């Protein structure tokens, strides 16, 4: 059962960011090709190359990537992704979040005054996540007998937070005219076609 919960909370893989960047850049050049075609082609080529590397027993090439590189890469891209998500969390609009990280950061600080109701949802959600996690860690240390239980409860925090805020959003938006998501006081996901696809150009958070 825990394995089932695990898949609900995948963070954004850095790969999605890179794919997003590539697709947007390609679409700028050739707007007529839909994004998903480019992504599929990319996936095939990359898959083919990696598969060849594996079959040719060239797996040791991965050893050329030192731990320093890996941790610098992880830190840098984590900063990149986090800073890219702050505007959405705070409800600040008006600039692209796909610029270089430092530019996005500067823009955030410049337009901080423009945050709206979204910030109320976003910041409280963030705070709640951290509080729940540290609370359960503390409890786990205090009562070691139930440490495993606390760990899994802590893992559920993401689902809990999402469901809680979805409930709030539902209560607020229950009676939207025409079920139009744009009329909501804060930005909501809107309709995701049942079983159908969405274009890749959408923010990586959709990958969630």
């Amino acid at each position, binding site marked *: 059962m*825990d*394995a089932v919960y*695990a*898949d609900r*909370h*995948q*963070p*954004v893989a*850095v*790969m*999605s960011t*890179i794919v997003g960047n*590539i697709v947007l850049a*390609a679409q700028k050049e*050739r707007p007529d090709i839909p994004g*998903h*075609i*480019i992504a*599929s082609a*990319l996936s095939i*080529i990359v*898959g083919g190359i*990696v*598969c060849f*590397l*594996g079959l040719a027993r060239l*797996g*040791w090439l991965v050893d050329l*990537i*030192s731990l*320093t*590189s*890996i*941790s*610098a*890469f992880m830190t840098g891209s*984590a*900063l*990149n*992704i*986090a800073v890219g*998500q*702050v505007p*959405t969390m705070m409800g600040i609009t008006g600039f692209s979040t796909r610029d270089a*990280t430092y530019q996005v950061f500067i823009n955030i600080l410049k337009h901080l005054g423009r945050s709206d109701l*979204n910030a109320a949802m976003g910041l409280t*959600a*963030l705070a709640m996540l951290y509080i729940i996690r540290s609370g359960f860690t503390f409890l786990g240390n205090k009562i070691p007998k139930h440490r495993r239980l606390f760990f899994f409860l802590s893992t559920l925090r993401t689902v809990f937070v*999402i469901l809680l*805020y*979805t409930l709030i959003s*539902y209560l607020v938006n229950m009676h939207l005219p025409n079920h139009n998501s744009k009329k909501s006081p804060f930005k*909501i*996901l809107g309709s*995701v*076609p*049942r079983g159908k*696809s969405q274009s890749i150009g959408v923010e990586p*958070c959709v*990958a969630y």
Partner: protein
Amino acid sequence: MCGLLTRDVGFKHAAVPQVDSEIVSLFASELPASIIVLLIEHISIAKSFGRVNNYTINPSQELVAIGVSNLLGPFLGGYPATGSFSRTAIKSKAGVRTPFAGVITAVVVLLAIYALPAVFFYIPSAVLSAVIIHAVGDLITPPNTVYQFWRISPLEVFIFFAGVIVTVFTTIEIGVYVTISVSAAVLLFRVFKARGRFMGRVKVHSVVGDHLIDEDKPAGSNRRPDNDPETSVRNIFLPIDHRDGSNPMIEVDAPYPGVFIYRFSEGYNYPNANHYLDYMVEHIFANTRRTDPNAYGRPGDRPWNDPGPRRGKAPKVDLDKPTLKAIILDFSSVNNVDITSTQHLIDVRNQLDRYTSPETVQWHFACITNRWTKRALAAAGFGYPTPEADGVISRWKPIFSVAELGGDSSAAAAAEWKLNKDELKRQRTHDLERAHSEGAREVEGINTPDSDSSRNSVEKAIRSSKAYKPDANVRVAVVQGLNRPFFHIDLTSALQSAIANIQNAPRHPHEEPNVILGNGKSLQEDPDPAFKPA
């Protein structure tokens, strides 16, 4: 460990994807970065969790898995996917042990895609962003870890920060390239700029608890080997400049006047051959004097960058410094040599033979463990004593040198012939009874050795010596071949051999007879009172 997921990009575009060159050309320049990121994400997770769960990863196998899943994904409308950190972490703690968990994951996600869009409608984007920030915040390397980096390898902390800063100020792809290339550059720099160390000898006593190990043994007990753990006194070799952090108050002396022990620190190959040997020769020149200060027959023969004595005065001879007698090379960290590095050794050998003319320098090698290395050095002419040249300057035959192009009519051969012509003329007027060889003699290094008579005499001497006759009481066996006596097993035996050779060498008339040591004896009478060969 993590299976493929088609994400929310459902099944509308399940079709054969089109891949043609114009589409590929749109992203061809981003391919290396994408591949590297794909690999990094997957393999680093797999390796660290594999270690936690006692599971070794075969990277090639993992690569095939990633490759195949990315190849098949587009047929169902998916896009490039790879492993993810937190998913793996949670599954690992949940007790997942086989990849079958990926199947369960996929099934659940499929259900979610189909059954829950109505719920998805109401999810606030701000909350999703908050979740993402929370999850990603864990990936940032904490300061504690950076401090650990600093303690282990300070240079890499700079590489780390360079990578992070580049990623923040430009794109992820450039950050990846920068960190990988700087890591590679540091690796190459270490190899290229490797510097050897000169070693000196120190006698040590081992102490257990508060007494020496064999303090209580009677004086006349059986002879024990030199580094038997149960005897307390033995010789060790430490760097002369105490750069390894050893106690600077311990006097590490040069092992014997004129003998130098040089240890390579990072392997001996073509990028660093020159660097190693330049340092070695510079140190030797600084610590020895020319064997024959009058070696230059005419003022014009002295090299232009050697100032020489003032006009009319005798050449300045620094009698404090010994003459160069032998060089011992410690090959413990050298696995392979190549043609360039061996050629450099030959060049330095020739250069030093000129420096010590009319004597020659003996070259000893210690701790060579690779047979190919021994073969290479033997073919280059090392491994046995340099035959005394009797005043004739001969050069060691090089493997490949630009000055040698043309064989016997090359520039180097001509220079040698000219030098020998003058030298022989001088000899004939001085010593008419000399019956030895005339003309230039090339000591064959590469070709068959049988023509060299002095080497054969060394072999005969070895065979007929008493040292190798088996003693009735004690079984002895020879550890290494006898035909290359200067390839030694360790530094101690190399040093003993070098000193024995020096003390047995015939005296030369050019040597200053009145070098007086501090204890009132001359150098010839008492070479080194502190060292007694075993």
